[in-house]
């Protein structure tokens, strides 16, 4: 029986038919999705923090409105993803709990500090850019609620990257200090951004299964290469450089070669020793705890109103 169910499931996936919440699915598929979707949701939520840091200090009303809109979008992305994870039978509170206790991870990129205004540009261009590269194929993921959430997210993401590039472009045409600030932000964000695609293929044993289940469509290294190729061209328009001496076009491969990634740094940040891990988690927990009385009051009010309505009827 089990065998038949698994075969039917894989046939469905192979035929590019979406799996919906009530359909039978292998437990491992459900677990993989849960981990991936909730991790992604946490990243959207924690990802608001480094940018929120600059909202009050945006250099113009235009930039401030844009940054606010972007951060608000990220909150929405978190919501879409949490909702799709909930269809797999986990509660929102359980997921928050996993985040707050450190049991669940979020993207390591958000453990880096945003120390200058140019960081808002570098994040938009590189961090959102890498996220988009990752997420576009997820719009075709085999799990329906996930794929639908990703379609909505990808539609909204494209302005995130464009506003970031525009911000950097403005700085790149500014005075010497502004140009330096622009290059410095690119220098600091480049390597963490290409780490966002995750460990190299030979060290990510789960990729194969995820590809088979059509949760993933490309491997980490394939996506990373694509991102390097487009960024290496885009940076020229800024008149800036990527901080990699080994970045060079390889005619034979039809791709850019690039330098070795410092995976020690990556794993170190994943393990909690990045520059901002503690601060991010504490800010997040504080926001949740400080909001507790609001959630409780709203619930109490709603229940009281309901009672009144019942009596009046």
């Amino acid at each position, binding site marked *: 029986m089990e065998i038949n169910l698994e075969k039917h499931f894989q046939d469905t996936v192979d035929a590019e038919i979406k799996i*919906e919440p*009530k*359909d*039978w699915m292998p437990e491992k598929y459900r677990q993989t999705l849960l981990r991936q979707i909730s991790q992604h949701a946490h990243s959207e939520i924690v990802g608001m923090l480094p940018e929120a840091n600059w909202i009050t200090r945006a250099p113009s009303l235009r930039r401030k409105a844009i940054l606010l*809109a972007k951060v*608000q*979008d990220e*909150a*929405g992305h978190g*919501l*879409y993803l949490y*909702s799709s994870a*909930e269809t797999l039978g986990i*509660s*929102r*509170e359980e997921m928050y709990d996993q985040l707050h206790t450190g049991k669940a991870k979020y993207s390591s990129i958000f453990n880096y500090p945003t120390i200058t205004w140019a960081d808002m540009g570098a994040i938009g261009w590189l961090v959102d850019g890498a996220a988009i590269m990752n997420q576009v194929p997820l719009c075709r993921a085999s799990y329906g609620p996930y794929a*639908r*959430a990703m379609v*909505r997210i990808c539609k*909204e993401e494209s302005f995130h990257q464009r506003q970031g590039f525009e911000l950097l472009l403005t700085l790149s045409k500014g005075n010497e200090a502004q140009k330096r600030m622009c290059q410095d932000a690119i220098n600091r964000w480049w390597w963490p951004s290409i780490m966002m695609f995750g460990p190299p293929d030979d060290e990510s044993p789960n990729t194969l299964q995820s590809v088979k289940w059509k949760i993933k469509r490309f491997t980490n290294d394939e996506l990373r290469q694509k991102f390097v190729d487009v960024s290496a061209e885009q940076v020229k328009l800024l008149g800036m450089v990527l901080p990699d001496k080994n970045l060079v076009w390889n005619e034979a491969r039809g791709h850019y070669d690039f330098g070795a990634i410092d995976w020690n740094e990556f794993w170190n940040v994943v393990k909690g020793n990045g520059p901002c891990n503690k601060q991010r988690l504490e800010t997040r927990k504080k926001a949740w705890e400080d909001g507790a009385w609001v*959630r*409780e009051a*709203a*619930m*109490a*009010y*709603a229940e009281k*109103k*309901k009672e009144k309505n019942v009596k009046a009827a």
Partner: protein
Amino acid sequence: MNKEWPLWEVFIRSRQGLDHKHAGSLHAADAAMAIENARDVYTRRMEGVSIWVVESKHIHASNPDDAGALYDPANDKAYRHPTFYDLPDELKHM
């Protein structure tokens, strides 16, 4: 007290004259808050002109395992489709 806000399903009419379509779900204390939150997350770019919300627990769904039996009655009735009928090419406006 520790009570989670209930889950709501959100349906949006994107343009006057179109059906409401499922957009997603969210948590809210009551219907009024669910509509306001839906406005904030699902219509930030003019995606809607009308919002419905319904508490998820009120939605009853068919079971995909029953799909075979459930839709079987419609399976062998090709004559319900206009293409079933063999008519001369000269026949116009039909």
